[in-house]
């Protein structure tokens, strides 16, 4: 129980000293008097929050760790990577509408909706274990635990753990363990008992899993809009995931697995002459990442409406999370000579830490690029976070550290400056403080200055998809127009007809391969292909 029962009457600290029989008699007298007067003894009952995080090493073999919250690829590849270290991991399904309703019923009101989706998802899973598989609550609490992320600066996301506890208590799973995986690496709260060891090995595995999932997702969204046989991409994704999971679990054969992924995607027949607007999907990290009802299945909706979606890899987000402490440390170290010590460390040590952090960031980039290259991911750049911060700073002060920080603003600027997307769709939970409360306000200045950027912010409430779809269609219409004009321009400039393009592609099938990337000139990929063919023919 979480409430402390009223204390029985007794000695308080600092009491005056009395002979024992006197004290005993006085005590008895008080008890009788209290009874007579109807006065309860002691202080009021007080609320104490019960926190359950005990997870010992010895429990590892008998405890299943539940994971969820990202895309299917991320969840499964992450699980496989961590299984390698000897953990029993199970992946929860992608949170959907039903999970949302469940979460909404048991969490605090006015929480942002990713809390409802993720908490509800766990509740539903546990209830199924109880009601369908017949496990007792005690057994579930003993055999399962859940790991969730925290962090994100001063935003509600960091407080979800509170909601998990509240909801679990309400539903009758008091005692179920939810461990925090804090995203700021130097402050882990992984529970007591050392069951979950967050060491370098663990972190490397986590990063590997996430990076590989990013690559699979990027390939999926690049290919699927152009596939000639519906479902071919999804089938390739399933097979690729299986190969990668096996390599991750066994800890070997990764290069071969990545090559297999490349073969899988290369084999998908595509029509890359389809003119499609490119939509960059940005926003709050969970809302932009999930593929379920949490963002109204927007990636699938956009594809259905004829767009190509560019999703944001988690790698960028991880690099931003690493950037934050590194930036702060470096800045303090620079201020040190002027203002005196800011930390209890020698400046040399601080600088070494900064350099080590940079090293880790570089290692992540290299892993991403090498793995991506092996898997056939061409022409994808992870942005330089320092540059993004610098670019956004005049609009969005880098001192603000909540949620996605300056990322949304900086990325929108990047898409505008480099003409790499026709439309930026920024999706965030209703009332998201850093995103809809601040970023969107700043973006309004950017869109005023760059009217060619089609920017659409959308808040998700968990329901009311029709209205959101309509607003997306409104903007997509213009994006489609832009793509068509680019394609027409590319054809006109190269003096080609579509038939000529098709016959060239028939002659050189490599150009029409799913993994082929034409040099960037337009946001529209078909326009780039037309331009490339035009140049080849003119040479």
């Amino acid at each position, binding site marked *: 129980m979480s409430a402390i029962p009223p204390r029985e009457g007794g000695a308080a600290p600092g009491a005056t000293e009395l002979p024992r029989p*006197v004290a005993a008699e006085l005590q008895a007298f008080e008890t009788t008097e209290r009874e007579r007067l109807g006065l309860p003894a002691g202080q009021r009952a007080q609320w104490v929050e019960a926190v359950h995080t005990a997870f010992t090493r010895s429990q590892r073999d008998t405890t299943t760790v539940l994971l969820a919250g990202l895309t299917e690829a991320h969840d499964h590849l992450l699980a496989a990577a961590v299984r390698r270290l000897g953990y029993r991991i199970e992946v929860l399904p992608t949170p959907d509408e039903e999970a949302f309703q469940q979460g909404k019923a048991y969490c605090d009101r006015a929480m942002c909706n990713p809390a409802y989706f993720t908490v509800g998802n766990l509740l539903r899973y546990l209830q199924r274990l109880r009601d369908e598989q017949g496990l007792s609550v005690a057994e579930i609490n003993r055999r399962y635990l859940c790991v969730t992320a925290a962090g994100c600066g001063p935003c*509600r996301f960091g407080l979800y753990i509170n909601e998990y506890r509240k909801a679990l208590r309400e539903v009758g799973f008091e005692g179920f363990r939810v461990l925090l995986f804090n995203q700021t690496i130097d402050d882990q709260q992984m529970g007591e008992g050392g069951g979950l060891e967050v060491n370098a090995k663990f972190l490397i595995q986590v990063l590997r899993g996430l990076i590989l999932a990013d690559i699979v997702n990027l390939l999926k969204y690049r290919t699927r809009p152009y596939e000639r046989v519906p479902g071919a991409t999804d089938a390739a994704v399933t097979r690729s995931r299986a190969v990668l999971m096996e390599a991750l679990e066994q800890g070997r054969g990764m290069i071969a697995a990545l090559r297999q992924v490349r073969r899988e995607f290369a084999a998908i027949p595509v029509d890359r002459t389809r003119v499609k607007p490119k939509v960059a999907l940005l926003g709050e990290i969970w809302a932009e990442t999930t593929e379920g009802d949490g963002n109204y299945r927007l990636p699938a909706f956009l594809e259905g409406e004829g767009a190509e979606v560019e999703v944001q890899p988690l790698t960028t987000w991880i690099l931003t999370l690493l950037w934050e402490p590194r930036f702060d440390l470096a800045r303090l170290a620079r201020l040190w000579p002027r203002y005196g010590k800011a930390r209890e460390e020698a400046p040399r040590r601080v600088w070494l830490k900064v350099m080590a952090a940079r090293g880790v960031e570089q290692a992540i980039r290299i892993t991403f690029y090498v793995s991506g290259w092996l898997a056939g991911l061409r022409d994808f750049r992870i942005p330089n976070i320092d540059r993004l911060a610098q670019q956004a700073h005049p609009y969005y002060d880098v001192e603000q550290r909540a949620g996605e920080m300056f990322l949304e603003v900086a990325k929108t600027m990047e898409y505008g400056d480099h003409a790499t997307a026709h439309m930026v769709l920024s999706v965030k939970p209703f009332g998201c403080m850093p995103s809809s409360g601040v970023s969107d306000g700043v*973006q309004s200045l950017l869109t005023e200055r760059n009217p060619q950027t089609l920017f659409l912010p959308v808040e998700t409430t968990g329901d009311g998809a029709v209205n959101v779809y309509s607003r997306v269609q409104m903007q997509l219409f213009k994006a489609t127009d832009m793509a068509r004009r680019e394609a027409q321009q590319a054809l006109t400039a190269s003096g080609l007809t579509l038939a000529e393009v098709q016959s060239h592609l028939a002659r050189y099938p490599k150009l029409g391969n799913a993994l082929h990337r034409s040099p960037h000139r337009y946001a529209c990929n078909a326009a780039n292909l037309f331009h490339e063919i035009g140049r080849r023919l003119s040479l």
Partner: protein
Amino acid sequence: MGSAPPRAPHSLARVQKQTVGTGTAVPAARGDSLQIGIDVGSTTVKLVVVRPGTPQVLWQAYERHHAHQPERVLELLERAEAEVPGLAAPGTRVFVTGSGAHPLAEPLGARFVQEVNAVTLAVERLHPDVMSVAELGGQDAKIILFRWNQRTGERQAWTSMNDRCASGTGATIDKCLLKIGMPAEDVQRVHLSDRPMHHIAAKCGVFAEMDVVNLTKTGVPAEEILCSLGDAIVQQNLSVLARGNTLKPRVLLLGGPMFYFPFLQECWRRRIEETWHDRGIALPKGVAPERLIEVPDNALFYAAYGAVIYGERIAEEDAPYRGSAALRAFIQAGRQARFGSRAGPPLAADADELAAFRAAYTIPPFEPPRLAAGSTVRAALGVDGGSTSTKAVLMDEDGRILNKAYRLSKGNPIQDVKELLAELKAHVEEQDAALEVTAFGATGYAAGVLENALRADVNVVETVAHMQSAVNLFGEMDIICDVGGQDIKVLFLKNGELRSFRLSNQCSAGNGMLLQATAEQFGVGVSDYAEHAFQARLAPRFSYGCAVFLDSDRVNLQREGFGREELMAGLAMVLPKNIWQYIVQVPRIDGLGRRYVLQGGTQYNLAAVKAQVDYIRERVPDAQVHLHPHPGEAGAIGAAMEALRVVRQRGHSTFVGLEQAIAITYATRTDESTRCGFCTNRCPRTYITTRTPDGSEAIYISGFSCERGTVPDVEALKAFNREQRERARRLPNLAAEEARRVFASGFPVEPLPEPGAPVQGAAPPRGWLGRARLRKRRFVRSGAATQAARAEVRIGMPRVLDMWSTAPFWRAYFETLGVPARNLVFSRESGERMFADGAKYGAVDPCYPGKVAQAHIHDLLTHHHSPQRPLRYIYFPTMPSTLGAMGSDIGLSCPVVTGTPNVIKAAFTKEVDFFAARGIEYVDAAVNFGVPVLQRAHLHATWGPRLGITRDENEFAIEQGLRAQAACEAELQQRGREVLESIEREGRFGVLLLSRPYHLDSGLIHGVPETLQELGYPVITLRSIPRDPAWLERFFREDLAAGRITHPLDIRDVWPEAHTANSAHKVWGAKFAARHAHLAVVDLSSFKCGHDSPTYGLIDNILTTANVPYLALHDLDANRPTGTLRIRLRTFAHALRVREEQLAEHTRKERELAERLRRKREELLAGGRDDAPVGVPPLAALQPAGGQP
């Protein structure tokens, strides 16, 4: 520049206006292939037939669809096919647009065009000189702005559409018209003129409705309410939908409401012209002023026409019209297949279940008892002036109900009551009896007016009236659930007394009304709702919550093909979810009790009752759920009972008498003479003057936003002020004191040290390798000229957000540097008028404290800056962490608080740089109070170059700032200590406001502290609770001893993950209240406050476990929900009074015990025994503080 406009010889814009609902045909040559454009909106269907390649409209029609979109489209198509030759021929193409169009595209063979794009296409084609379009539809509002792209030379459209949380739409107007009770044809004759405007919150349809109800109840004329509503809607659209952009000329106004309501057009004109003036927009030459903002003749058909234009962009064979027969087939067969998974089981599984339910819950018709002819009936009268209806009961002195009367509100409550009384009187007289009213009790929204005009014996708060009625009828109950038209009240009882309660807030209100409105929309009487809902064989699942969202869900589900019966069943089933999950927020209700009473007008609807009974029984299988036999009149019954009690006690009634009441005359007046002149808000007030035949007159004043508005003239104000001062002496209001103290100047800053004075403390260590090289340093001062220049600098700062936590620092910081105190200017406290004037710039819609910042910047720009007294800087620092009470470990600020300075910069510089235009520099540079080194570096980087200060000066000023801040905090805590100790001494309750520092802005807190004072309670703020560990020790002794916390301010025992300053302070405040026997709590939060939401459950747990009386006022927003706030606070005060009696009793007993123990101890010690000593509680531990009341 842009492409030349196409010629439009018979363009849509020039076609004569058609009569609504009548198609008009122009003969077309046989064999021509035609194009059909259909716009299926949320309330109407518009159809045009156009000859391809020309803008000529051959046929057009506009009809309301009453939620039968496909049927209405079919009807129009059949008519068009009959009237336009060749329409059904092959080659005709069809395009659909609008929120309801998507499902019809496939059966018709049509192409779907999103409606904003369709309108854009039509405007681009027809009006090449138009730069802005505002369109209001049933549930959508759209703004389209055209801009010239400098890079490409093209005219580009920027479009914006409301999300769901908005009210600037036709549906809101429709709903409000229902409340006002004005016929549609009269509405079309209302013009704006110079009517006084009243405050209506237009950010949400439900909020707007509630404000309209309040205005109606206080007798404001319908025309004034309508114009105020129009103005509020326009302002909402201009500030939120336009995302801070200006609607540049020429402007087109489109859509049904714009077309039909002249007052709405005039509101747009007035407000748009204002923005042109404010923002210095040059008007195009040679355009007649009336054409600058224009409603074209065919404002209704633009989307339908634009959809057709889209056809020019796609292949000619695309979108072939399949004929009306295809749509008919779809209506008959296709829709049923689409239900998918959104439906659940019906209200009753089978006829037996339904029959059993009816047998248990059908209310027998009320039969008034026969009266003996010639007798005189002595009875008490109870009147409940509710939000949508007025109810009256006659009760004899034994509590028997003699008769009751009910009517939907027609507007003025006095008129309603006059008619009800006449009806009751007539009924008695029909039986040859006479009626004598011996007591009169009023409750409900209109109780104030009735108390004043008819001199009611009591004005009972609704909740208490409902409770008394239920307790009287059913005896001991655990829960009373009252569902009225607008409000839902759930009361929790113990021993027949109010233990706690939950009331719908604005975001959860309007459920009963929605059921009623839905029935009306389907053409079903409210009384037949249940009959229809019980027929449904399945029920669609609605998402519970806001009534506006529910209504838009209804439209969508209807579009998917759910029938009337199913929708009605689904809506009834959502009611209990709204009550228990949204309002009460207790998902497991089994712990609340098992004896329930359902009452309130909505409970006449048996479908709603069944849904609630099933919901409760599913969770509490042994629950007893009673239905009040007079659900709608429960409040009136309670009021009559209370009146009887009071009159019995007092010996006489104050009621003016039945005859006088029926013959009362009244006049309402709202003009310049009634306007409140006691502050700059200048609230438009309404005086309702009533006169009874005996000549006595009473004036009731409404429409004010603060207590000063309750008095008519200066003399009365003086008396009022005297009374206020006296009250403040007895019942301190630390909220008002804190609001004054935080921004006051007067801290004696030390002068800057002389140049060359030795610098205190160690010099900064230098050297890359960490070797500290101590160096003696002398204080460096800036030059004399720079110092002199600083005396001329004026700095403006907004009185918002974290400035409330840091203002003493800023004052002292700048004063130390030589900026005179008089040159440090803070904007005024927030106010309705300030918000209305200055809230048109922002592009985002966060919490009100964040949103109001733009109005403060506007206030600084317009009110505090002039060429004679210019501001040099407006300083609004980005503060990621604050000078909070919980120390630097938990010092972070909320993202909106931190980021608003950047948002403001974007808003005030994007179209026009308002700062540069006035020669002001806007400074939003960051300062991080959480890391002292950063704080120093940030401030020097910001003010070093601007004020020419040296690093030493900067650091000295920071030190002074921090001292001033500490001095202010100490003063606040001293006052708090005095008040806390005095209420303990006197055995009284004080109310602790759990709020963020900036909620103390009088424009944000909506008079809550003053109302509490008025109800008899001193108000204590969070910052005024002493934080001295020694003083706090007695409250946290046990927690410290048990090792749950390491310091009295530690909150890890309840919230281990806390990291933001203000939320953590609130939670700590709750812990303190849980340990102080004399504190009740009012927990205040803003709508959309993301940092308070995780604390709702925590604070509830802390306070409920310790049995602290508390009231949650979440979702505070720009509008002042006067009515609901008062109900809440008065109910709270009622519960508190019961607790106060218990507290007094407890204190008495504790004192008696202490005294008896003292005597016993002396007696025992006098016996003189000499044994080993042990611990015994000292007397201090037995003091009431910390004990259990």
